[in-house]
């Protein structure tokens, strides 16, 4: 059952990811990306990462993609015009590079994986892992967690400064 669900989610993930990069309309690409994130959340749930599955839906499929769609519609983009010799050439090189990368990955995977020692205490799988993640975040990873809030604050200030522009600052009006 788990394997069948995984194969279904994986197929959905690969197909929607391909549609993201193949479709001409940016809005359709963004909607396919939402579907890709949702199938990835399903895979997280199958891997007993319940907290990350929920965060994936809320943060990625919710917040980040809403931002993407808002910007696409704000800019009022039409279908991408992609024709001409130069673009076709670059497209060929891109697909070739992708095939090479996939081949390299398959070669590395064929050589097998060397895993380090597993953790002594296995997290409690029966009731989900939200409590365990919360305990780890607020004890062992407290400093990085607090740094994250500084990062988000810096990002917020940066976005406001960039998006406001410098055309109409109050000092220049005076």
């Amino acid at each position, binding site marked *: 059952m*788990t*394997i069948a669900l*995984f194969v279904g989610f*994986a197929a959905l993930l*690969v197909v929607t*990811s391909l549609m*993201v*990069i193949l479709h001409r309309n*940016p809005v359709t*690409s*963004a909607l396919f990306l939402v579907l890709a*994130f949702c199938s*990835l959340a399903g*895979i*997280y749930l199958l*891997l007993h*990462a319940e*907290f*990350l599955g929920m965060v*994936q839906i809320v*943060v*990625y499929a919710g917040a*980040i993609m809403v*931002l*993407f769609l808002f*910007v*696409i519609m*704000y*800019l009022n983009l039409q279908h*991408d015009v*992609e024709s001409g010799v130069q*673009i076709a050439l*670059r*497209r060929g090189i*891109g*697909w070739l*590079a*992708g095939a090479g*990368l*996939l081949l390299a*990955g*398959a070669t590395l*995977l064929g050589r097998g*994986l060397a*895993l*380090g020692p*597993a*953790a002594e205490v296995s*997290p409690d799988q029966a009731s989900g*892992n939200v409590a365990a*993640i919360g305990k*780890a975040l607020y004890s062992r990873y407290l400093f990085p967690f607090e740094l994250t809030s500084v*990062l988000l604050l*810096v*990002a*917020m200030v*940066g976005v406001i400064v*960039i*998006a406001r*522009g410098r055309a109409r600052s109050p000092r220049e009006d005076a």
Partner: protein
Amino acid sequence: MIPLNWLVALSAIVFTIGVVGVLVRRNALVIFMSVELMLNAANLAFVAFANHMKSLDGQIFVFFVMTVAAAEVAIGLAIIVHLFRLRETVFVDEIHLLKG
């Protein structure tokens, strides 16, 4: 129990799709979405190994990656909006001011 090799292979495939998207598309927004695909492929590898080793550390790292991704998307989209106001285009091959 899902085989670890399948998960790593799926992660590699999604990462490659993201790389190809960055290389072949010229719309800055779609390139940005492809970067998100690559980040998510890396996250999938983290979760797969964390599940295999029965460790929570990989999942916590994914949490931090998601935070950085959220900040990155907000700033990147602000830059794209600003670029569109200045140049009236989001196609990266039409933005070649540094090329001389």
